[in-house]
Structures are given as structure tokens and as C-alpha cells.
């Protein structure tokens, strides 16, 4: 098992290196000229050229990439003379439109995205598994229809549409909640909750759908297993069988998918964060797209990739923990 985890982590690191390379090259090929962008409005070709040298964009692409990687481990210096400054390791570059080291920016925006994802995750798992269980237990009846229809509607609408509808409905029409205004949960828990409840719900409604379906099908599958029949034959209570036998085996594959979805969310709650004005990483990255802020784009892409890859490792390990058959292999 230890060897397996080591191997998995080594592979993950290699994968991340590959991702960083592709990301860097992909964005480097964009037509946006970082030197021109840092140059501002009243810019002259000489200044662009000077900027290009100053930022290292005059160097060959591979060398730029090497500097990026090196910067991650030893930090990186920018500027010249009295205006020089540095981004300490782990440096992912410096954003000239936000005047911050990318690492600092990510460190600041990531918690928001994390809380958003975590809350949504908890909510959608509860909702999805709950509805899926009901649907499976009431297979073919109206409860089943209702749960599956709900899941279909949820998965079908674009995030921005659901998000804005929810926002308008609760904050304007019904006035149940104040408009979102993000505060750290440690500073103002109440404001945090009233702000996050709608984004959580939005994401949960979107994602719960798939889990309703997965849970339902997984449970129906499990109900056909002989070990469920043996459970009944033992004289176990219905509740015990559903929990220990049916749900348990339906949940194992769900956990793995959920882990990956959670990771995907960490890198990509873009629309939700925009709609609800949450100062998270997703919104920062879409802004970086708009402004062609390449260092931030590379940084957020890499951060997202780290979480996706990390989730893969965790899921693999978790699979082993949850499923003894995998563990001993």
C-alpha cells in the first residue's frame, strides 16, 4: 500500500510537470503580448521592447518555462533598480494587472473557492444521495419520478441562469436574504453563511442531479446482489441492510467521482463566483482571461491541475480504504 501510494504520488508529480509544460506553452502561444499589456495605454514600441526584456519575454520559450519552474522553487525577481521587487518561492509569477505575486493572489482567493466548493459538496452529496436513495427505494413510483426529474432539470440549466434566478428570487423578489457580500467565516460567520447559502445551493442543485442518478442506479444494482439477500436471510433490519449493504456498496464508486468533481470545482467554480460576486479563484481566473493576464492564468490553471491530480491520488487511496478488495492488491 505504501509503495502504491508512493508510486501514485510520483506519477502525479510527473503529470503535473507535464501539465505545467503544456499550460505554459499553450498560453505562451496566445496572441496576447504580456509586454504590451504591462505597458498600459500610452505605450510606445520602445517601451514594449524594454518591457519584454525586463519581464524575460524576449527569451526563448523553453528558457522562459525553465525560469518559471525555477521560480517556483527559488523565487523570482522582477524590475530593475529602485523599483525592483521579488516574489518568493513558491513563485508562480507576478500579475502586472493586479500588482501582486500570483502565489499571493491564489493564497488569498483560494479559501473562498474552497469554502464554496466544500459547502456545495456537502450539500450536493446530502441532496444527491438522499434523493437517490428515495428514488431507489420507491423505484417506479412518483417519488422516483420526482427525484429523477428534479435531477434532470438541475443538470440541464446553465449555471449562470440558475444562479441569477436564485439570486434575484431570494434577494430581490422574496427579500429573504441580503445580497451576497463575502466575509471570511472566521470574521463574520453570519454574513458568510447568508452569502454562501445561495451559491452553495446553486452548485448543489447542478451537481446533485448526477449523484441522484448514480446513487439510484448503484443502489438498484446493489439490491440485486446476493449479499443483500443473505442479509435479509440473516434477519437484519431493513434499515441496516440499506445502510450497511446497499448504500455502502453504491457509495464506493460515488466517492471516487465525487472526489474528482470536488477537485474540478476547486479549479472551476467560475460562473458561480462571478454571479455571486465571490472573490474566489475562479472569478480571478476569468478576469485573467479577459485581461490576458498570463501569469495569473498559468497560476490558476496549475493550481486547479494540482487539485485535480491530488484528488486523483486521494481517490485512488480512498478507494483502497473503502474497498478492501482494492486495498490488498
Amino acid at each position, binding site marked *: 500500500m505504501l509503495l502504491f501510494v508512493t508510486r501514485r504520488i510520483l506519477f502525479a508529480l510527473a503529470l503535473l510537470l507535464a501539465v505545467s509544460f503544456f499550460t505554459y506553452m499553450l498560453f505562451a502561444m496566445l496572441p496576447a503580448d504580456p509586454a504590451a499589456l504591462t505597458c498600459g495605454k500610452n505605450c510606445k514600441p520602445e517601451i514594449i521592447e524594454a518591457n519584454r526584456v525586463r519581464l524575460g519575454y524576449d527569451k526563448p520559450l523553453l528558457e522562459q518555462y525553465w525560469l518559471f519552474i525555477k521560480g517556483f522553487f527559488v523565487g523570482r525577481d522582477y524590475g530593475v533598480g529602485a523599483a525592483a521587487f521579488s516574489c518568493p518561492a513558491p513563485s508562480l509569477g507576478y500579475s502586472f494587472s493586479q500588482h501582486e505575486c500570483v502565489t499571493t493572489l491564489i493564497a488569498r482567493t483560494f479559501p473562498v473557492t474552497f469554502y464554496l466548493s466544500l459547502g456545495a459538496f456537502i450539500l450536493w452529496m446530502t441532496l444527491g444521495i438522499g434523493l437517490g436513495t428515495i428514488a431507489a427505494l420507491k423505484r417506479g413510483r412518483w417519488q422516483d419520478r420526482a427525484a429523477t426529474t428534479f435531477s434532470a432539470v438541475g443538470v440541464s440549466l446553465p449555471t449562470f441562469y440558475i444562479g441569477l434566478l436564485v439570486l434575484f428570487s431570494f434577494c430581490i423578489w422574496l427579500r429573504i436574504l441580503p445580497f451576497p457580500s463575502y466575509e471570511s467565516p472566521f470574521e463574520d460567520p453570519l454574513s458568510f453563511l447568508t452569502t454562501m447559502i445561495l451559491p452553495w445551493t446553486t452548485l448543489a442543485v447542478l451537481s446533485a442531479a448526477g449523484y441522484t442518478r448514480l446513487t439510484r442506479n448503484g443502489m438498484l444494482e446493489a439490491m440485486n446482489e*446476493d*449479499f443483500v439477500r443473505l442479509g435479509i436471510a*440473516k*434477519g*437484519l433490519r431493513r434499515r441496516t441492510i440499506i445502510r*450497511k449493504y446497499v448504500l*455502502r456498496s453504491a457509495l464506493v464508486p460515488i466517492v471516487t467521482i465525487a472526489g474528482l468533481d470536488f477537485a474540478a470545482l476547486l479549479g472551476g467554480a467560475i460562473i458561480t463566483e462571478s454571479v455571486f460576486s465571490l472573490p474566489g479563484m475562479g472569478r480571478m481566473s476569468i478576469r485573467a482571461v479577459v485581461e490576458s493576464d498570463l501569469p495569473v492564468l498559468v497560476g490558476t490553471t496549475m493550481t486547479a491541475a494540482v487539485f485535480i491530480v491530488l484528488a486523483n491520488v486521494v481517490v485512488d487511496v480512498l478507494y483502497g480504504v473503502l474497498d*478492501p478488495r482494492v486495498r490488498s492488491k
Partner: protein
Amino acid sequence: MSNSPLLSVSNLCVSFNTPDGVVQAVNDVSFDLFPGQTLGIVGESGSGKSVTASSLLRLNNSVTSTTTGSVQLEGRDVLTVDEPTMRSIRGQDIAMVFQDPLSALNPYYTVGDQIAEAYIIHHSSATKDDVRARVLEMLKKVGIPNPEKRIDEYPHQFSGGMRQRIVIAIALINSPRILIADEPTTALDVTVQAQILDLMLDLQRETGMAIILITHDLGVVAEVADSTLVMYGGRIVERATVSEIFATPTHPYSWGLLGAVGSLDTSTRGHLTTIPGTPPSLISLPTGCSFHPRCAYAKDTGSRCTTEVPELHKVSGTSSSSACHMSDAQLVSLGARGDTL
């Protein structure tokens, strides 16, 4: 063998509603099971033997199936008792062993947990140590080597035969009076099958429980059963003691079955007898005797076989019962001939 039956099944009928129609899986099945008895139920796929077995524990899908008749267990009708009572019957009075020992065990829990679970349900006051001791004792009893270590292992870490021993341990930990074994050795190799059958018989000798053994293998029946039910198309076509059914079978289907079994002793090249055709659909059973399309003797009885369902009746001159329209004398004489088809 005591005179009063432990379990008395009468007129059991089970049908399933499927999208394609109603499946009459079990039709008018009656039999008694006595303490210490081993009853073999023999039949091919779809003969209703497995459905009969699971009806005894009410394991059939309650939504899609309909069960009528009665299953009397010491004055209680298993088919109608309330759910808590049923739960107390399951495992404690009647236990079950399934065909595939891998899929019958929950892959996510240790075998110790799964055996213990069966015990705790019916012994809620037992302490943890008691339970573990009891589980270990059980593992030893079913012949798991090194039980102290293996109690904490998972099903996939065991071989097929060992798994079936564990399923048996689960079934027997509450010392049930009836064990239903549904094709317990079909998935196992022949040498392991022999081990498991021996084990079951040893345990039966020890506890005096009754066994209902569902199998398609006449050899297994011959090895372990006291009496036999032969099922075809959801009905019992013959009921007999083991010695009688092999000596003087009294139903054409039984003749066919016995004829089709090869022997180890002599080569039967070119001589294997067969039953022509295939087993019938349970949705549209042939009219009359459901075996008549495959029966070589159906023409002999005029149109009775195609119109009238033969009653299971005692065949005079034997202790067997048969559901055939032929005369008892014919049945006895043809059965005694051995090579019948």
C-alpha cells in the same frame, strides 16, 4: 425422524409480474420437512426450486411477486407473520446458504463482522467478547484453518470453498432448525464440493437440523439426501425417498434425468439417453401436464396429458408420489426397468 413436521408447506404458489407477462414460477407445491431430515429438491433451471426455497424465507420481491398457500413453522405461517416475527425466524429458525459464496458475502466487511452480525441480531445482549468467541468457535467448526487470524480478513481473501464455509458459518451460528442450501456446491470444484457436503452432513449430525438441499445434480442428492422432490415447470412431479428414486423412479421426467447422467464406471459412448426439447416457458406453460411435449409416453394416455394437470399422488407399490397420468403399474414397471427412454 420425528412424526410431526417441522415445516409444512402446502399449496405454495408464487408468481412474478414481469413486463413481459405473469410468470408462474411455483405452482401448488406442498411438502413436509421433518427434524433432522435432508430433503433434496431437484430440477433444471427454471423448474421453480430456487423460488420455492426463497419463498420459505419471504425473500422474493414483495412488489413484483405474489405468494399464496401456507408455510407452517410450528403453528406460525411464515407467509403471513408480521415483519419483526419474520426477522426473528430468519437466521434463527431458518437459515440459508446461497449458490455463489463470493457474491453472497458483503465485500466491504470482514468475515468476522459478517458472522458476528448474524449472531448479534438474535443475541442482542451478547458482549463483544462473547460474540467474538462464538464467531471463532464457528469458524473452527466449519473448518477454517487459523481462525484467529482469518476472522479479520475480507471475503476476497478466501478461496471459493473457504467462502462457502463462511456462509455456512453465518447460517449456522444461531443453530437454526432448518438450513436451506440453494445449490451450495454448484460454483465449487468437485473436490471442494465433496468437502462442503461432508461438512454440512457433519454439522447436521451434530445439531440435528433439517436441511433443504436445492440442486440440479442427482449425484449430490444421492450422496446426501434422505428424500427427494423432483420439480418441473414449477410443480412437483415426483416425491420419493432417495433410495426409491434411484431404484424405481416413477415419473417419465425422472427417468429422463437419471438416464442423462453419465457414469464414471463405464463408458457410455453413444448410449447417453436424452430428454428431447427444452424446458418450457413459465409464462406460457403447456396445457395439461407441462412435461407432455417432451414425454415419450404422452401419446399413450390419449388427450389427458394435454388437457389435464396430473395430480401428485401416491404410487401404489412404492412409497413415492408421482404426478403422471400413467397407471401406477405402468410407472412402477417402466421405472424399474432402469433404461426407460
